């Protein structure tokens, strides 16, 4: 396959991935809400409700606090843009997305950190009390989650001798047994906790809270309205979908297309949707049965993730 057509193909597939996640993320959130409501014995909003909300938000008025600077309107854009780039280079439906050579787990992590950092700055831009509180908590949790995250990446990468995600995934496809190794299982266990912390779900953060003092992510975005708020919510759901997508492709990359042929891509899309939906539903079921952890109990949770990741590395060194 010539380089040009290869470039075009990978670019197209990346576009497909982005569109799929942009539309799929809200649906995923809607599904999780639906499951939650069902378990609470209620009908719950339709699965497409988040998409409807987004459409409405784009039609509404934008507002900007008089103290705010250019950071405020920029932050949602950067959030969505970084997540979009991360999605584009991640092997979600195919192992050959655009720039797949540099779709490195380390790069992905830092792309996400860019978004959350800019959002934390935006939270302080309006000069309100709650914004600063949210930013402070968000960056603290981010800092505590990072060791677990990078050591997890290390544990996942040692086997493949590379932190390049396509390489790791292809390795798993080549040797399905490598999923069942203790090193991989420990690392994935740690990854689950990190994902929950990073995407602001229970028990770390309650996305449905109305009380400012209990907020983490919500408190940062209290000032946003209309299209900006739409971008922020979209960014959050895309982020969740991306993280779950990475997770499922690390656990069970089967169905993932190894080329950019349209048929395989469609298969990959379906497989991805099914896997992510399954994980998302499991997550929301778990959320129904858990309460939010106190802010200063979070270190225990994240330290647990960190130890899991360490055990992953060690058992990787032991079990060869």
């Amino acid at each position, binding site marked *: 396959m010539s380089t040009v057509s290869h470039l075009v193909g990978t670019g197209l597939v990346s576009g497909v991935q982005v569109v799929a996640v942009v539309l799929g993320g809200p649906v995923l959130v809607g599904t999780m809400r639906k499951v939650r409501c069902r378990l609470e014995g209620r009908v719950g909003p339709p699965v497409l409700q988040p998409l409807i909300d987004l459409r409405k938000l784009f039609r509404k008025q934008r507002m900007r606090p008089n103290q705010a600077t250019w950071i405020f309107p920029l932050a949602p854009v950067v959030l969505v843009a970084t997540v979009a780039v991360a999605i584009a280079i991640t092997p979600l439906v195919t192992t050959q997305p655009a720039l797949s050579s540099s779709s490195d787990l380390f790069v992905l992590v830092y792309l996400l950190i860019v978004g959350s950092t800019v959002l934390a700055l935006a939270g302080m831009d309006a000069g309100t009390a709650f914004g600063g509180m949210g930013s402070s908590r968000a960056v603290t949790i981010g800092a505590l989650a990072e060791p677990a995250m990078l050591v997890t990446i290390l544990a996942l990468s040692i086997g493949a001798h590379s932190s390049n995600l396509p390489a790791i995934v292809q390795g798993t496809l080549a040797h399905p047994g490598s999923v069942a190794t203790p090193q991989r299982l420990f690392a994935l266990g740690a990854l689950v906790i990190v994902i929950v912390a990073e995407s602001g779900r229970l028990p770390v953060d309650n996305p449905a809270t109305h009380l400012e003092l209990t907020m983490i992510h919500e408190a940062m975005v209290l000032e946003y309205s209309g299209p900006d708020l739409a971008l922020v919510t979209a960014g959050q759901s895309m982020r969740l979908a991306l993280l779950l997508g990475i997770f499922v492709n690390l656990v069970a990359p089967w169905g993932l297309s190894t080329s950019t042929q349209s048929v395989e891509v469609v298969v990959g899309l379906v497989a991805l949707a099914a896997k992510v939906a399954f994980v998302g539903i499991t997550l929301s079921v778990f959320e129904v049965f858990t309460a939010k952890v106190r802010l200063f109990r979070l270190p*225990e949770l994240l*330290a647990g993730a*960190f130890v899991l990741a*360490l*055990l992953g590395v060690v058992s990787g060194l032991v*079990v060869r």
Partner: protein
Amino acid sequence: MSGSGYSSALGLVASVVLLCAVATLWRRSLGAIVRALAVQGLALAGVATVLGIHHHDAGLLVVALLVLTAKAVVIPMLLARVVRGDPGSRETQPLVNVPTSLVAAGVLTFLAFAASRSVTSLVPTTAGRLIPIGLAALLVGFFTLVTRRKAVSQIVGVLLVDNGVALVAFLATAGVPLLVELGASLDVLLAVIVLQVLATQLRSKLGSFDLDQLTELRD
């Protein structure tokens, strides 16, 4: 079973043993701690089973059965009864707080890994290479024993150490002298029963069974 399957399966169950040891440091509710112990017993039995099947050693399978009954069923049930005695009992104030203990557990694991490098070189079998995990489980269990206050979690600590010893024994000499293992489990069983009686009496006397309150029994 096939080589790779055997090694990965063995590694899996062995690391579950270690994971359960860590879980006792992670969780606060005594019920969860006891459950972790039960799972660990199960995993230990699993180790014995995998080894037995691999070496076609019926004795090991018998041991597995005994381990299962003693460590995964009987002892946890006894402990669970003690815990049920005062519901909602939690390890509220461990001597070392939870995050630090977890990091310590990680460090202990590394220590075990470094210390047993020489041993693993002596035992070049698949099982032998897993000895560090057993040693780590042992150390973590000891840490639980040292840093936890409640009588139950300390009993659990003792049992974790015992399980760690058992695991190392299994891995080092695939196929332990049956009696040794049995003896260990049995006297631990006795210890548990004694301690349970003690604990129940303490509770009836003092209301709860925080071992630090034993110091008040002096005068």
